[in-house]
């Protein structure tokens, strides 16, 4: 069995809510946004875990916590079985060479004043991997690998001079140039057009094989997961409600929320009709999440007990775990 490259245990992030000065004087009670609330999972080397949820489910915060871009409230992150939660910023900086990130918006993640070549070679210089001609060579080679060709021509271009799809390739090249083994991809194709999406997705799959990468693929779109993920973790209000191999979850979604999410995916087929009615309402606020199972107010299968106890993830076989005592019985 391959080792776990990334493991998170009971990861929790509660953002304190800003209150006005007067409110601070007169109330003791502190309020928190429970963005991530006790999340545990592991990603084996070479595997792609899709972290799926709607806006406000805590998926992006989870990604940021793993990269230590945020300081967690509690819980631990392990990289190659070593806890990195207590790493100093210096130690973390060294580790960033191996743990990289691709963000959703390629416009916002590239400096408009830095040429594409400079942007891609920047991490090489920061981490002291290479500079001068060596850095240029490595950069050009990486540009060709991500399909930015002719590389020597595009090297001097600025982000505004290339297309959206090319910009996302630049961001990918910059993430991979230091030869990382783990990449958090946070909605890498959400901004792209349909035809660009499939290209970026295909590129990410190809690069994963070529560089032996492990991805945490954060997305709200279950349909794209099918083409890149091995495992899925479904998040709802800061908690994982279902986790397991993708094929298994697609074939046999157990948690009512997962089933709804799968059913809501737009299907490009006029004859298709949804099998379940959509649940009423929307994802509640993570400030005062519902008691017990946070999905219970919207759930068609809710029983009185669901509002009392917070369900634990229970193994239902085939490495498939579900936090729903009603459906997992």
């Amino acid at each position, binding site marked *: 069995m391959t080792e776990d490259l990334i493991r998170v245990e009971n990861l929790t992030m509660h953002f304190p809510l800003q209150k006005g000065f007067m409110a601070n004087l007169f109330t003791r009670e502190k309020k928190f946004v429970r963005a991530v609330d006790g999340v545990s999972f592991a990603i084996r080397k070479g595997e792609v875990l899709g972290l799926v949820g709607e806006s406000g489910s805590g998926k992006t915060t989870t990604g940021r916590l793993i990269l230590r871009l945020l300081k967690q409230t509690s819980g631990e992150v392990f990289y190659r079985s070593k806890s990195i939660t207590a790493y100093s910023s210096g130690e973390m900086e060294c580790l960033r060479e191996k743990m990289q990130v691709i963000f959703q918006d390629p416009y916002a993640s590239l400096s408009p004043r830095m040429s594409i070549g400079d942007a891609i070679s920047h991490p090489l210089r920061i981490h002291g991997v290479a500079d001068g001609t060596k850095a240029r060579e490595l950069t050009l080679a990486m540009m060709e690998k991500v399909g930015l060709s002719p590389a020597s021509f595009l090297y001097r271009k600025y982000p505004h001079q290339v297309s959206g*799809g090319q910009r996302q390739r630049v961001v990918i090249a910059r993430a991979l140039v230091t030869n990382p083994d783990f990449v958090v991809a946070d909605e890498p194709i959400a901004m792209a057009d*349909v035809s660009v999406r499939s290209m970026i997705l295909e590129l990410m799959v190809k690069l994963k094989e070529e560089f032996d990468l492990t991805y945490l693929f954060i997305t709200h779109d279950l349909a*794209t997961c099918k083409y890149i993920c091995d495992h899925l973790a479904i998040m709802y209000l800061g908690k994982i409600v279902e986790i397991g191999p993708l094929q298994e979850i697609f074939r046999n979604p157990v948690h009512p929320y997962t089933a709804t999410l799968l059913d809501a*995916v737009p299907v*490009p087929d006029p004859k298709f009709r949804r099998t379940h009615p959509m649940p009423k309402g929307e994802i509640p606020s993570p400030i005062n999440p519902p008691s017990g199972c946070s999905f219970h107010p919207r759930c068609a299968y809710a029983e009185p007990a669901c509002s009392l106890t917070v369900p634990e993830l229970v193994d239902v076989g085939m490495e498939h775990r579900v936090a729903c005592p009603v459906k997992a019985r």
Partner: protein
Amino acid sequence: MNPGDTILSIQDLHVEFPINIGTVRAVQGVSLELKMGEVMGLVGESGCGKSTLGFSILRLLRPPGRISGGKILYRDRDIAAMDRRELLALRGSKIAMIFQDPLTSLNPLYSIGDHFVETLKTHEKGLGRKDALVLAERMLESLGIAKDRLHEYPHQMSGGMRQRIMIGLALIMNPDLLIADEPTTALDVIVEAQFLDLLNDLKNRFNLTIILITHNLGNVAQLADRITVMYGGAIAEVAPAGSLFHDPLHPYTRGLLASIPNIRLDQPKLMTMPGSPPDLVDPPAGCVFHPRCPHTMDICRKERPPIAARNGHLVNCWLYKERP
């Protein structure tokens, strides 16, 4: 007017935006007919001109954008030639539009009730505030929103709720044509599905004709009667929804369909289309799609393709031109 009559007929419409580096030819000779009571899906990628087309129907183009040619006939009256007074009478009361982002379309300082009152009083001068609020309450009910929320403000509502308010405002004057410009793009999947269900329901109750502009073919598949695929400011193909998905004719439609993920199908890999959409300041000569097309012929590089009718589709491609 009866179902099946033509309610909107766009004839050889051209829209351009003169900018400092040249003229963006955003819509280049689009002709389209809309039948009473149908849902037309208008689909394409960013920059294909779908939103510009939607905005020009209500003459809402932002300067320097302008209609540089063609006609937009709504019940045989040319919108492109209307004066300001006629336009104001048309907008909102006959043709309504909803936009992608409900938060920027609603005024944060107005309560939901104020929004309805303002809309109603703009169109019906004599109407009192009380009567307007009664109408608003009735509308909220048909949208599945509790009527006491009329006193709330946009920031107190969720994204899906705001978009439902938008559609309520659009329908309060009982228009017969609704233009929905990417109404679900800012919404999460479940809320999106809820909204599309609502739209389908409202269509029947309000006898609407709908133009649903979207980049997501999956969104329009079950809702639309016909689908228009646009590329590079021109129409690539118009076809009944079922036929478009199962037997696409234009090479662009085929590529687009093969590159969208379908969760219900066992396709191991997505297709990709090489290249990127054309620069509309300097569009390619001939067919705008020819640089990316797998079937390019000599004539495609030289001349714009004529519209060909084939299997109930209208397709803008030389492949389907009857050879003399």
